């Protein structure tokens, strides 16, 4: 369905001015557009705190060394209203994060795209998240 809609959108043209993004802070002040990254790791904790939630991720490097990353996400208030709870992203879930690294070089990033490592499905979408109560659940 998404592919089909994308085609419709491509033709829709004029009303596709970017949806005004309002966020709590300017992401560009914290994260570096010149340092895009892709991480695969195992969720160790999901801090559901306002104004932004943080996913903690253990990422194993090529040398076998494990680095602890923190990935910034949206407000728990909106997640909860959309049907997601702490159980939606349990410890041990392996995910892939595409995003941008913190400007100061710390092991923190903002997650632009988040997918499950096992099947490449988007996190939280289409009922693929445990507890989301979506399609087929």
């Amino acid at each position, binding site marked *: 369905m998404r592919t089909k809609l*994308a085609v*419709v*959108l491509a033709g*829709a043209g*004029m*009303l596709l*001015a*970017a*949806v005004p*993004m*309002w*966020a*709590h*802070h*300017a*992401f*560009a*002040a*914290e*994260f*570096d*557009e*010149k340092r*895009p990254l892709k991480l695969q790791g195992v969720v160790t904790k999901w*801090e559901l*705190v*306002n*104004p*932004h939630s*943080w996913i903690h991720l253990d990422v194993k490097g090529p040398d076998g060394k494990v680095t602890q990353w*923190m990935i*910034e*996400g*949206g*407000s728990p*208030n*909106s997640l*909860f*209203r*959309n*049907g997601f709870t702490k159980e939606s992203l349990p410890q041990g879930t392996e995910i892939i994060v*595409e995003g*941008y690294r*913190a*400007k*100061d*070089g*710390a092991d923190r990033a*903002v997650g*632009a*795209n988040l997918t499950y490592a096992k099947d490449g499905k*988007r*996190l939280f979408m*289409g*009922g693929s998240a445990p507890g*989301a*109560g*979506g*399609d087929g*659940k």
Partner: protein
Amino acid sequence: MPQRLVARPLLRALNLLAAAMVTAVLVPRPAISQTGKSKAAPAKSYAVPRTPDGQPDMQGVWSNAVLTPLERPAELKDKEFFTQEEAAAYIKRTIEQGNKDRRDGSGTVDVDRAYNDFWWDRGTNIVKTLRTSLITDPPDGRLPALTPAAQKRAAQVKEARRLHPADGPEDRPLAERCLVLNSAGPPMSPSAYNNNYQVVQTAKTFVVWNEMIHDARVIPLDGRPHVPSSIRLWMGDSRGRWEGDTLVVDTTNFTGRTPFRGSGENLHLTERFTRMDAETLLYQYTVDDPESFTRPWSVAIPSVRTSGPILEYACNEGNYGMEGLLSAARFEEKKKSK
């Protein structure tokens, strides 16, 4: 609130399917003011509920989550209202646009977009009137031009931020510091999330408790004057009065540190709350600030009843972002000094 724990894709799908049919039935267009200045009144068949002391009862939790933009998109030119079909198409496109796995655009755009729509809670419908903008006046649905003085002020703020982007937290916007958040107002605006507010009334006060950073604005109704002009407040000084079944709230004594679309410290904001039906509290406001805008302008948002509750938003406690961006600024400074 287990009844709310329904996956969003399902809600979206239902909404998309139902949009045309629902809007066709629910459009109360004649009841809502066309200019924002004329008086709003509920349908004659609707008996406005009363509090024990006889005020129109507006208590409850209301949502401003709506996809209608503040300004009419320039492409729509003089189109003031959508047809049913156009409304359904607009809703569908807007939701899909926000929800796409988008990695297009420059790195700057991509970083600022941050993440997909599943993190947000913008609402899934447009205003029931099918108006193409929240602005009802001027008739073109667009913000009036800023005065030269307001343009100069905005340029000065921008320059100050360029010179001192983040020496300390004080250089950052009040919202980033979790002090006041723009959408809570006054005036209140639809935002990406936390769009809910709860009204609590007593005989002498009207309280608006906004989920966005949990500000409770206590508005006196007892006719007391505004505080002296020497006293300035980030959220201004609000006084309420009943005009028929509409609550009119005048707010003055702003500081200029919470500019709303370019407004200044002498903004005179007039808000109007009117019960339209069991599910709708019409929220209107007029921005009157001749120092900043070349003419006054008005907005109408039909707030929709929601089951609530208002959720906690402990912003400062978890504001790791502030630490991150200050650390980023120090890093950049070190890099430049090398």
